């Protein structure tokens, strides 16, 4: 293991003194980059601007105009699209007069026997479960913040929503669908059904939703409104 950096550098460094003064006046005026630990002054910047860490370029603050309403609207839209997507057929395969229409739920159900169950669980989790849990968690937090009264579990739920982000794989699934289609192209005729197009729109809505959330803004709101 590497040792931690020397925690007791000389006390007369002017930069160190300046940080200490700032921190004493208001500890929340200072942020340390979560990725590399570099200190920054937290400043309110205009919506649409992005504040990045000057050492590692991690996005520290990226406020959006009307972030709460936008996030709420997009999260609700994605949930509605998901329900619609699950209830319509996804693709139709036809070969020699035999035709087969399958929805995503049908596909997961078709996999759910024997050890294939593991694959069914993976798809159900990464494509349906996690994106929906994340949307629900955001709705819970943002709804409360809009009422000016963050729900009791706002911190835990928002932390969970953020931790789930890498495991929501709807866009990966969409590319997978493309590859699968190429694979069956020579073997059967493929028809795109409603759920396929809804899925495409949902991937777009989920991306917009992710972009409308500024972590720093939400954390600051949660802190200020809980006090």
């Amino acid at each position, binding site marked *: 293991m590497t040792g931690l950096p020397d925690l007791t550098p000389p006390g007369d460094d002017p930069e*160190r003194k300046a940080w200490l003064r700032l921190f004493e006046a208001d500890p929340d005026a200072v942020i340390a980059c979560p990725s590399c630990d*570099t200190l920054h002054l937290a400043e309110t910047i205009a919506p649409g601007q992005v504040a990045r860490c000057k050492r590692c370029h991690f996005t520290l603050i990226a406020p959006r105009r009307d972030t709460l309403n936008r996030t709420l609207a997009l999260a609700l839209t994605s949930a509605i699209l998901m329900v619609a997507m699950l209830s319509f057929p996804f693709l139709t395969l036809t070969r020699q007069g035999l035709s087969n229409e399958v929805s995503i739920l049908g596909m*997961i159900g078709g996999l759910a026997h024997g*050890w294939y169950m593991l694959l069914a669980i993976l798809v159900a989790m990464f494509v349906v479960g996690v994106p929906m849990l994340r949307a629900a968690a955001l709705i819970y937090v943002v709804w409360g913040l809009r009422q000016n009264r963050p729900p009791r579990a706002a911190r835990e739920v928002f932390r969970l929503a953020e931790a789930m982000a890498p495991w929501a794989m709807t866009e990966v699934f969409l590319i997978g669908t493309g590859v699968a289609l190429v694979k069956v192209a020579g*073997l059967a005729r493929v028809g795109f059904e409603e759920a396929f197009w809804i899925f495409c729109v949902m991937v777009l809505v989920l991306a917009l939703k992710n972009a409308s959330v500024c972590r720093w803004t939400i954390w600051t709101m949660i802190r200020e409104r809980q006090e």
Partner: protein
Amino acid sequence: MMRASDIGWIGCHNCGAVHSRGAQVCRTCGSALHQRLPNSMQKLWAWLVTGIFFLIPANLYPLLSNEIFGHEEGHTILEGILLFAQSGDYLVAGVIFLASFVIPFFKVAVIATLALSIQHGWQLSPRLRHVLYEFVEFIGRWSMIDVFVVALLTGLVHLGAILAFLPGAGAICFALSVICTMLSAQALDAKLIWDGVTNE
């Protein structure tokens, strides 16, 4: 550029709020506070070794079998890529070659290099280490493409005796390998990358 640890402060790994020494829980987000995440390297190696362990059968066993008119034929990852290339689908062959073959092996190598360079204080520039870290964090999930292809083909294509797909043991090993290496990359405390580095 000063870092929180240079002053003896603790920066929250989750939200970035700064705390004085000795604080246990972040006042903003409620996460447990650590100067550096505890046992980051042990967790990284544990997940990485497990990931490598699954990556071997993932490449040796068939990923997917197709059954055309009762005739069953299994293909490993590389055989599947060759099939795409032979039928002239070079774009798809390229995507799968990258996502299912190049990236998983490259990722394992990158995580191991990062971990060794941190643990042994190799003279890799922190800038390079950081780029590698970002790459690994970003790319991990895209390796799941092939797993979804297998699930889609198996679940969607049921045309009686004419045509069916069956997942092979390689598919689940591959999925587990991707998950383990994602967890391995997440276990790394990126703050370690910049420790012991004097300002460039």
